């Protein structure tokens, strides 16, 4: 890894440090927080899609497990929010591992199908178990607190989320350059070749899938506490697609692409609100346009064009 890569990290940290002093009002602060939360989720998902070359169309289901663990366990059972968050992450990890082992012996579309099915089943369960989850209407989430201190204001949330994002960028950069990351990239390049040189393909794929699912679950909990409310839409198929789109539009296998993708697609619905009624059409057209003209995603395409590379 050269210094060039860490330069990006310093830039991200610098921007995060300056941002709260330049955003004009609380509306934009809220938008920035949601961008940062999505960026962390997308970083995790990009490890799976971009670096390991596996598709998950059910990631919102994992977000949902985390979010609802943080809503249901403290509300109905009086658990501490941190404990609930951990329990959600553990449950997600176990579920992902159970599902992943048989599925990762398959490839391509079968994997997309299995993760899609899993996500939809989770979503339907959240909608139907109304006595616990509030059904389609969703339910409020108690505030996150530690040692009598409660996270309430947007400013406090901002610093928490900014810290999470910086750590995630740093961790992703290091992970990619570790033996684990190199194994992932190898199996993306050629599974057979990496098997031949001794990479346990299934084990690595399961590991990265579980890791990104747990990432999603934790950030689901964070989102739930930040917004103070969860609804099944948070865990639906469309949200899964949005997350995958963030990865692909920003750039597969690009850490900074994940950030760009998350920022753009979180802002897009706000920008489209002016198109009254035409949002879906415009959103769909933008997705198609990006993929047709920039199939590698924004950051890698631009990086190649200006010859800098990441």
């Amino acid at each position, binding site marked *: 890894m050269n210094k060039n890569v860490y330069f990006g990290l310093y830039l991200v940290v610098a921007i995060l440090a300056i941002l709260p002093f330049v955003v004009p009002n609380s509306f934009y602060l809220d938008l920035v927080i949601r961008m940062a939360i999505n960026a962390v989720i997308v970083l995790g998902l990009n490890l799976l899609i971009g670096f390991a070359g596996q*598709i998950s169309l059910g990631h919102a289901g994992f977000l949902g497990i985390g979010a609802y663990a943080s809503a249901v366990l403290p509300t109905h059972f009086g658990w501490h929010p941190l404990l609930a968050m951990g329990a959600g992450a553990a449950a997600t990890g176990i579920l992902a591992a159970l599902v992943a082992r048989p599925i990762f012996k398959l490839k391509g579309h079968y994997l997309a199908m299995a993760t899609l099915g899993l996500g939809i089943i989770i979503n339907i369960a959240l909608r139907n178990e109304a006595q616990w989850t509030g059904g389609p209407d969703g339910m409020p989430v108690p505030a996150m607190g530690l040692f009598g201190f409660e996270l309430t204001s947007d400013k406090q949330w901002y610093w928490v989320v900014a810290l999470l994002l910086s750590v995630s960028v740093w961790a992703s950069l290091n992970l990619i350059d570790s033996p684990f990351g190199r194994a992932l990239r190898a199996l993306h390049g050629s599974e057979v070749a990496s098997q031949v040189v001794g990479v346990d393909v299934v084990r690595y794929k399961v590991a990265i899938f579980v890791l990104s699912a747990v990432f999603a679950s934790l950030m689901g909990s964070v989102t739930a506490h930040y917004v103070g409310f969860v609804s099944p839409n948070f865990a639906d198929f469309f949200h899964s697609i949005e997350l995958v789109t963030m990865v692909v539009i920003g750039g*597969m296998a690009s850490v900074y692409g994940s950030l760009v993708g998350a920022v753009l697609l979180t802002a897009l619905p706000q920008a489209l609100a002016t198109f009254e009624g035409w949002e879906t059409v415009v959103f*769909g057209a933008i997705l*198609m346009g990006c993929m047709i003209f920039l199939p590698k995603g924004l950051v890698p395409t631009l990086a190649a064009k200006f010859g800098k590379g990441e």
Partner: protein
Amino acid sequence: MLAQFLQFLFSGITVGATYALAALGFTLIYNASNVINFAQGEFIMLGGMLAVYFTQAGLPLPVALLLAILIPAIVGVLVEKLAIEPVKGAETVTLIIITIGASLVIRGLIQVWLGKNTFSLPAFSGDEPIQILGATLLPQSLWVLGVTAIVVIALWYFFNRTLQGKAMLATSYNRLAAELVGINTSWVLFMSFAMSAALGALGGILVTPITLTSYDVGIMLGLKGFVAAVVGGLGNGLGAVLGGLLVGILEAMGAGYISSSYKDAIPFVLILFILFFMPRGLFGGKSTDRV
């Protein structure tokens, strides 16, 4: 007991026939291009919605239905020409997102044009239910099953007995080899999208008098069609039909005997089980990797 079972079976086979047509659409496009077309469900929706629109506009039923099949076929071709062909050979995820983008555009346009209401279509030959061993069967169900059966036979004939059909099959086995013997593979791609859109639209039209339609019915119908295609072993035409019927029947049985609120989850539970225990689907062949 028997009456109840038959009742669930009838409704399962009827819905299953629609899934079968959608699954055939997935299979056609997958064979021609290796693309999973996530806009398939929107063709089902388009068929139903356009049929409603044209009949309400006063066109005679056969003309309305013909238009409601023809227009989706043209939309399918447009999707192929404008969005799929320019990115030949792109990564799977990229193609998936393009087809999802296409589905959003189609769904959004219909929502702007025809609104968010739920519509119905009059049954083709009356609503007088037929009594069979205590269960009732709607005449429209016979239409669904009859037309699906005719379509399946016609497709079989097309792929096994005509030069064009064999050209499409050849392309699905090996595109390069097909090109070498002079098959116009971009025509094959064109035909696959037109045919699969028409099949989806046909299913959508046939089932609308029973299940109603609105701008957003395509998502679930399409995903279940995808499940059916995978159940049958992706790329296998006969498998897709059997997969569609199986998914429809299990869904109806599950809704009837287990829990109607988990009806939509049943196809996805089924697919997870099948992938765990029979990873190539029920009728898929063995795969080998070429290094």
